[in-house]
């Protein structure tokens, strides 16, 4: 069986096949066109459905996240603010009471001075 005979068979069978494809009747052609359209429609509707759900849920997620954040800030902030002010009061009060502290220190100095004199004067009679 020669290579040339094989080539002839290939060429002839290919030509016959393509003739039969060209000779397809209108009913078949029409149904193939319908099948193609249906396939493309199905594909695009799949994509639309996905896009629709994505576009619909993205704002919903955003609004929900914003609401949760707002609620957390609303309920969580006052105690924190109050504690901050208490800290500030303590600091401020420390500053304000610095004079009292000096007075207390002055009292202590008087006491130490008295104690020192009493010790140096010797035993009391």
């Amino acid at each position, binding site marked *: *069986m020669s290579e040339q*005979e*094989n080539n*002839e*068979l*290939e060429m*002839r*069978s*290919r030509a*016959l*096949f*393509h*003739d*039969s*494809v060209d000779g*397809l009747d209108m009913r*078949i*052609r029409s*149904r*193939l066109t319908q*099948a*193609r359209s*249906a*396939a*493309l429609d*199905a*594909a*695009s509707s*799949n*994509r639309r459905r*996905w*896009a629709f759900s*994505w576009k619909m849920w993205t704002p919903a997620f955003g609004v929900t996240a914003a609401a949760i954040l707002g609620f957390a800030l609303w309920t969580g902030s006052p105690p924190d603010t109050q504690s901050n002010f208490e800290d500030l009061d303590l600091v401020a009060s420390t500053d304000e009471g610095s004079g009292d502290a000096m007075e207390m220190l002055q009292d202590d100095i008087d006491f130490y001075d008295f104690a020192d004199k009493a010790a140096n004067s010797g035993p009391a009679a």
Partner: protein
Amino acid sequence: MARFDTLNAAWMVWDNPAPAPEGAVLEYTKELEKFLAEIERRAFRMAQVALRDADDALDVVQDAMLKLTRSYASRPSSEWRPLFYRILENGIRDLQRRRTVRKRVMTWLPGPKEDPDNEAQDPLDNVADAAPAIPERLMQAQAMQKLEESLRALPARQREAFMLRNFEGMDVAETASAMACSEGSVKTHYSRAVHALRAQLGEVW
């Protein structure tokens, strides 16, 4: 070379479809339509040769189109053809298996026995054509019929290799992708198919 080893032998489903941007989708939808329009008639004829039934062939081609557009449209267009024919061949085999099962079941059920000689005959085949038969065209039709019969007599893999290589014009690498086998196997199947056809058709052709 891109291979499709991850595809199942049965109907394939894309597990994780990655949505493409809107602009890209429009572009490949147009490209896909062009591809399908270009390939659909040959695919139909190949399916018809294998299945011997126009309606079954149409169903299989439509299923293959749906599978391709739903699951593989976002793949590079160079992969579409081998993918499409792989899906198509899976569909043909699936249908042939179902037919075999149906036939086995039907033999157990009581009913009118089918005449094996008339099994594949369509009543419309016996209706005379109104147009006068042109001898050349008639000879071509007879030659094609003989070719189809010979192709059906081939093992499925040989028939597939011959049709993809010779009718669809795929190269060895593309055919190997479509058939999910090695390039060496494609060459072997094709060579055997050509020799078998030559042996069957040699006298007529």
